[in-house]
Structure formats: C-alpha cells, structure tokens
C-alpha cells in the first residue's frame, strides 16, 4: 500500500517536473531550426513561477465555472497521468482505467476548458472553444481506430499490459500495423498538443488562435495552472507514443534501483526525441487554414484504418 502510494506520488512528481522542460526543449529546437538563439530551455519554469506570484484578474461576467475549470481540467490530466506508464510498466492504479478511459479523461479536461472559454462572454473565447471542439471531433475517429489497432495486437486496452507485452516482443514489436498506427497517432498528437499545422502555440493574433484563444481570459495563478496542465497533457501524449510504439527499455515490476534510473533516462531520451521531431514538423510546415484540417485528419484516419486492415491481413482473418 505504502509502496503503491510512493510510486504514484513519484510518477506525478516526474510528470510535473519534466513537462515544462520538454516544452522548453521544443521551443529551443524550433529556434535552432529557424536560426534564432531562442529562450533558455528552462524558460517555462521561470514563466510558471512568475505567474504563480501574480494576481489573477477575473472578468466581471464569469460564474463559478471559470474558477473551477482550471482545477477540474488539471485534476483530470493528472488522473490520466496515473493510468499511463511513464518509465515503469507496473502502475499501482493501472487497473482503474484503460486507454479509452485516458482518452475520455482528456475529453473531460478539454470540456471544462472549452466551457470556461464561453464564460467571460468574449467572442475570442467562443471562437477558441468552438475550434477546439471541432478539432477534437475530427481527431476522435482516427484516435479510436489506432487505439483498436494497438489493442488488437496485444489483445487488451490496458496500458501497462500493452507496454509490458510489446517490450517483451523485442524488435517484433515493429510490425507493419504498429508503424501505420504510429503515423496516425503522431498526426493526432500534433492536433492534440495544439501544434503547427493545426494550431500555433506561439501566435499573438487572437483570430488565428485555438488553444490560446480559449484561455485568453486567464491570468496569474489560474493561467499558471492552465499552462502547467497543457504541458503535462503534452508530456502524457508523448509518453503514450513512446511506450506504445517504442516500449524498449521500460522497467517492469521488481526492477532494481539502477534499472529504474536507467529506464527513467531512456524514457527522457525517447520523449526528447519525440519533442525534437515535433519541432522539426512545426518548422517545416505552415499553419493550415481551419477548414483544410479535415484533410489532414482524414490522412490520419486512413493510416489508422490501414493499420487495422493490415492487422487482419497479417494475422489472418
């Protein structure tokens, strides 16, 4: 019981400690690709620390939803964080929910953020909320099909079990359906983390924003929580990709302390590589018009569907 609690708290600490760093690394990498110097990779920590020291200015129109939304969203993301394997496959609370539950916990977080966007009565908030839900709706079918493709491969949607089984397979884990599902999920990750070509995280023009427009009314401590939640969600989505498609090196229950440290380092390396890939994609494409996004997400849908079909072909229908 104590060991389980320790392991859960440790997992939360790792997520919270590591997620601003990965945002910083992506920003730095983007700056490098664009031949700029860029801010320090620790800048997100400074930003959050500063926001926590500032007052929150609140619109006069808002209700309790506006105050509760950041807390609920953050709690939902953290709960998902306890269901996703990070550097070790054994999760003390892994039985409480599977991959589909994780998707719905993210949906809960998104729902409250979008609800809060409408609370202040500004057009920008409504625009952001509407677009966020639109992108989420386009992502969902491809997401579910790629989840199915992965789940079929191991016969379960339990995340610990998926990572455990796949890491035990060695190089056999790189099957055609896994690769196709990976491409689909990578496109989804771009959309879910609000990156170019779907959304521009560093835009300063309200009309082109999606996520930033939604949280336009937040400031100070509340904004710090919203930003930290978004970074944690990004880290968790990267962790999903890392541990579903590249599970090698993950520790399992009963590993010694040195194996755990090694697994943690391997995990960080994997996340940094995914972050660098994200930065490369962001630099090499331009932001797409909102109504061209269905094309991009159809590509993702096609890949996930092909993953399923190839599974059926390879494993024999």
């Amino acid at each position, binding site marked *: 019981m104590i060991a389980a609690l320790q392991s859960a708290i440790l997992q939360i600490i790792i997520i919270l400690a590591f997620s601003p760093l990965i945002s910083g690394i992506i920003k730095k990498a983007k700056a490098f690709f664009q031949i700029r110097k860029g801010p320090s990779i620790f800048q997100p920590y400074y930003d959050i620390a500063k926001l926590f020291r500032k007052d929150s200015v609140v619109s006069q129109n808002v209700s309790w939803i506006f105050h509760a939304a950041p807390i609920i969203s953050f709690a939902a993301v953290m*709960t998902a964080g306890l269901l996703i394997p990070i550097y070790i496959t054994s999760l003390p609370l892994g039985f409480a929910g599977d991959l589909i539950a994780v998707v719905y916990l993210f*949906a809960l977080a998104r729902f409250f953020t*979008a609800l809060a966007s409408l609370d202040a009565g500004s057009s920008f908030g409504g625009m952001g909320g*509407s677009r966020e839900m639109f992108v989420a709706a386009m992502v969902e079918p491809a997401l579910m099909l790629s989840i199915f493709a992965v789940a079929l491969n191991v*016969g379960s949607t339990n995340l610990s079990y998926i990572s455990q089984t796949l890491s035990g397979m060695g190089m056999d884990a790189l099957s055609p359906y896994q690769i196709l599902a990976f491409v689909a999920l990578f496109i989804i990750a771009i959309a879910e983390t609000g990156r170019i070509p779907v959304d521009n995280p560093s835009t300063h023009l309200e009309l082109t924003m999606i996520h930033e427009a939604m949280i336009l009314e937040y400031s100070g401590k509340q904004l710090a929580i919203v930003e930290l939640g978004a970074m944690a969600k990004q880290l968790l989505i990267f962790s999903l990709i890392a541990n579903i498609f590249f599970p090698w090196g993950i520790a399992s229950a009963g590993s010694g302390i040195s194996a755990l440290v090694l697994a943690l380092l391997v995990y960080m390396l994997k996340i940094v590589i995914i972050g660098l890939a994200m930065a490369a994609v962001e630099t090499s494409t331009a932001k797409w018009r*909102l109504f061209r996004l269905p094309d991009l997400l159809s590509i993702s849908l096609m890949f996930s569907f092909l993953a399923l079909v190839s599974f059926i072909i390879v494993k024999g229908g």
Partner: protein
Amino acid sequence: MSVDYLFFGIIAFYLIGAVSAVILNKKDAICAYTSFISAAIAALLGIIFSISVIFGDTFSYNLSGGSYLKFGFFVDRLSAFFILVISICVFAVSIYSTGYVREYFGKKNIGYLGFLYNIFIISMILVASADNAIMFLIVWELMSVVSYFLVVYEHEKPETRKAGFIYIVMTHIGTGFIMLSFLIFVGTSGSYSFGTFAEAGKTMTPLLKDLAFIFALIGFGTKAGIVPMHIWLPYAHPEAPSNVSALMSGVMIKIAIFMLIRVFFDFLGATQAWWGYVVLTLGTISAILGILYAVVESDIKRMLAFSSIENIGIILIGIGASMIFFASGKPVLASIAAIAALYHLLNHSIFKGLLFMGAGSILYSTHTKNIEELGGLIKKMPKSAMLILIGVLSICALPPFSGFVSEWLTFQSLLLGFNLNETFPMIILFISAAVLALTGALAAYCFLKFFGIGFLALPRSKHAEHAKEANTPMLIGMGIFASLSVLLGILPFYVLPVLERIAASFTGNLESFTFANFATFAIPSSMISLSTPIILALVFIFMLILSLILFLINRKKQPVYETWGCGQPVSTSRNEYTATAFSKPVQMWFKNLYRPARETEVTYSTSLYLKESFKFESKIEQVIERYLYEPVVGFVITRSRKLLVIRTGSIHTYLGYIFGTLVILFMFVIAGGSS
C-alpha cells in the same frame, strides 16, 4: 400471489390518478397533486414489482380463458427491466410535473393532461406485459393515440398540430408493419399467444423469418426513431409539454427497443448474422445523423430530440453487435454487448429525462427554448444549472458520469469483435467504433454549446434577464435524476450483476464480467478493467490538493475587470459568440449533408458605407425528409387525387362500397377455405 397484488396495485394507482384528474379538473392545484402523486406512488410500486421479478420468478396472469380472445399478462426479466425503467422515470417526472404544470394553471385544462398522462403510462406498462399479439396491438395503439393527444396538448399553435399529424401518420405506418410481422408468426403457429411465437420462429422457412425480421425492424424502428424512420421524432417530442417529452424520449422509444430485443432474440432466435449487420449499420447511421442534426440546432427541445435519435443509435450498435456475436456462437460476447446496450438504455432514460426536464425549467422561467435568446442562466437559476450540468456531463460520456460507463462498454464490445476471426464482421464492427467515436466527440460539442451559450456569460435577451429559479418540485424531480446519473456512473459494480441477469434471459449466458477489489470490474481474459470510483476519487484528491494550494497562496481578493476586447469596451451581450457561430465549423465540415442556405438583407441609410440594418438568415436541409419522404408523399397525393372520382358525397354510395367490399372479402374467405 403478492406479486399479483403488486401488479394490479400499479394499474389501480394509475387509474386512480386518471379518474381523479377527470373528477377534480375544476380545481387546478388539487387536480395536479392528486393525479401526479398517484402516478408517483404507482411508480414506486412498479419499482418494487420489477425488482422482485428480476430477482424472483417470472410473473404471469391469465385474465380470461375464452378460446378466441385470450388476455393475460406475462412479465419475465426482460420486460421487468423495462417496467423498472418506466417506473424510475415516471417517479421523478411525476414529482417534477406537480411543479411544472403550474405554468398551465388557469390557461389549460389540467384534468385532461393528468388523465392522458396516467393512461399513457398504463399503456406503456401493458405493452411491456402483454402476452398475446391482439392485446399487444390494442395497447400499442392506445399508447400511440394517447401520446398523440399529449403531443397536441398545446394545440392552439399551428406547428404543434403539424407535429401531431406527422407523428400519427408515421406511427400508424409503423403499426402496419408490426401487424405484418405478427401475422407471419400467427400464420405459422396458428395462435396469437406470444408464448407460441418462439416455437414458430424455429419452424418458419428462412424467407418468412427474414420477412418477419424486416417488418418488425421497420415497425418498431419507426417508434424507436431509427433513421430513416425517425422524421416524426424531432417534430413530436419538442412540441409536447416538457414532462411528457421527458417520458416520450426517456421511455416510450425504449419500449420499441424492448420489442425489438423480444422479436429478434426470443421469437426469431437471432440466428442470422446479417440481421446483426443491418441493425448495427442502422444504429451507426442513426447515431451519427442524429448528433449531426443536433449540433446545428438552436431550439433546445429539438436538439434533445435529435440527440435521442443518436442515443437510440448507440443502443442499437450494442444490440447489433450482440446479434452478430450470438449468431456466430459467442454467447459471452453477445451478453457483454447486450449489457452495454441495456446499460446505455437505462442511462439515456435518466439523463435525457433530466435534460428534457431541464429544458422544461428553462421554458418555464424564460418562455423561450431558443438558445440564442438565453445566456447567463447559471446566475439566475444556479440549482437548475448545476443539475442540468450533471445531465450534460453524463450525456457527453465524461468520466465518471453514467454515460461514460455505457459508452466504454459499447467500445469494448465492438473491440471484442476480434474474437470472431472473420474479416467482414471485424471491419464492420471497427468502422462502427470509429463512427461512434466521432458521435461521442460531436455530442460533447453539441452539449457544450447548449450549456456554454445557454447558461454562461451574459443574458442575450429580456427573457433570460428575468429568469428565475425553478420551483421546488421541479428541482426535486431533476435532483433524483441527477443523483441517479452520478450513481450509475460510479456504481457499475452493483448495476452490472443485475444487467447480467437480464441479458442472460435472452443470450443464455449468466457470467459476463469478473469483479475485483476497489469496485473494479473486468472483461475476462483480456486484462481490461475499469473502476470509476477510483477515477472519481483521484480527480477529487487532485482537485482538493490544488484548491488548497491556491487557497494558501491566494490570500488577497481577486481583482475584477472587464472582459478583454482588444481595448474596446465589449461587456455587452451583443459581443458574445452565438450558438450558430459556435457550431458553424461542423456545418462547414458537413456542408454536403446540411446543404445550408443563407439569406442576407442589408438596408443602407444615406450612403453605401452606412448600414442601417443587417438581417442574416440561415437554414439547413433535412436530407432524408427532402429526398426520401417528399417524393413518396407527392406521389401518394397526386395518385389519390385521381381517386376523388369515387367520392360522390352520398351516404348511399358509401354504404354500397362497404357492402361490395364485404361481399368480395366473403368470397375470398370461402375460396381460401376450400383450398
């Protein structure tokens, strides 16, 4: 024996409610209390009765022993489950009604409403417990006609009369197909008793079985609101008084699902896999089309009606998957899928009842059901807003509320399709899962719009500005449903064993799930498990910790300022995002389906640069109504014009027609009897 008394006690209390409504109709308040409280008591008895049947023996009672007309009641676990659903809904809705009908005091006849309301519920209970086809058709027709009168209760509005007309026509087309389906069974078994239908289902030729399947699907599907037979639903449900809408969407359409399960599994044995494919496909189409039309709708009650079509679709996806598994000889999987469908059916009855009652509360205090005219209601009616938010979270399938558990189960049962080891069913199940995922996301979109535009920010009209909190009985009624929505979400551990018993009555498999510590349930041999209480506890713990931190570091009063508007003062409701704008991206995405038409009208004052007024109108097309029904209706009308020649206006000619028809039928019977 005591169960007999209980059953007739239920009927008696509804009858008391109906009769007292008629007798006391001069005194509005007393009339409302007696008729609705009596219905609530009957509903409580109904809950006890159905639970005792689910955990005890089948109830059957023979009313008359005549050799031609046999009337009797038969309640097994499946029908007891539906009586349970009816009773739970009626209990909460009746309490709500005592408050809601105050709106009609002095304007409308309360006795008439109370009478119809009670008779409507009796007819639904009798439909679920009839044991032969003749009696079934009589009570089915009673249910349709009484619900028609309820739909046109506010008949002074022309759109209500139109809705009632579409409803009564469609429901009779449905009843016609049900008759055809039953006649096929009767033709084989030679008896109208449902007890003999199962035997007949085994001996029929495959062609007759397929016909019986198709006719039953069309007939009951019309009542359930399956696309493309759904067109009456978005007209009829919104026009009825809100407490009746709650019952129609919550319960009446579910009765049709009950009969579909009865016919497909009990009578026909669910032997053909392609029946399952048809049901699954229709369910998938209903789900996606229902929610697509709901997203762009601005009328709250119409939006809820479209969302009922969507949820019926989700239920049918479960039933279709169950039929596919059952026909492939996988009863364990069949019962998991059936449990998913039954769970969603129960959840939908409750959260949709809650949302229709919520829509009623909005209508009651603002006199409008147009989202564009609402806004800011969370401050004017905070308690109702809280309860409606619970309904919204449940219908969006967000954890740990009730809709989440049943949608999770539906996804899992589709995923379990990989056990079939056949390409075609696997592909069709997985595509259905992808569409269901899209449906779920659009449902969140739709209800976010409803709550966000309707309840948050500033009031958009005088109606919303003067809104006041709903009265106590209304809040109690909604409160019951809201707490049930939460409980069904966090206690699947207790609900699933009950549903296992019910699904076992038609799939034959009793143990579908395994249960473990920490309120966890798991699907055997797949490592898949879920524990919503743990999820809820975790979310709560994180919320507590975070609130505590914020409280500790945030001692000062928060500064309050205007909403950011690029430096312009924008704190008026005119600058808010509208519902139409909010759902515009979906309208653009699916413009081939909606075929939107827009009209703009600008008037200028002195120059072209000074606009005086700007009018914008946008509407979308109901594709199925336009391209499937309108041609048929047009054809029927032009042809029947030609028949006008036989209409002479003289009663003698008409008597002649009747006599002629009788003679021809008589000859037909004699000729048929000799062969």
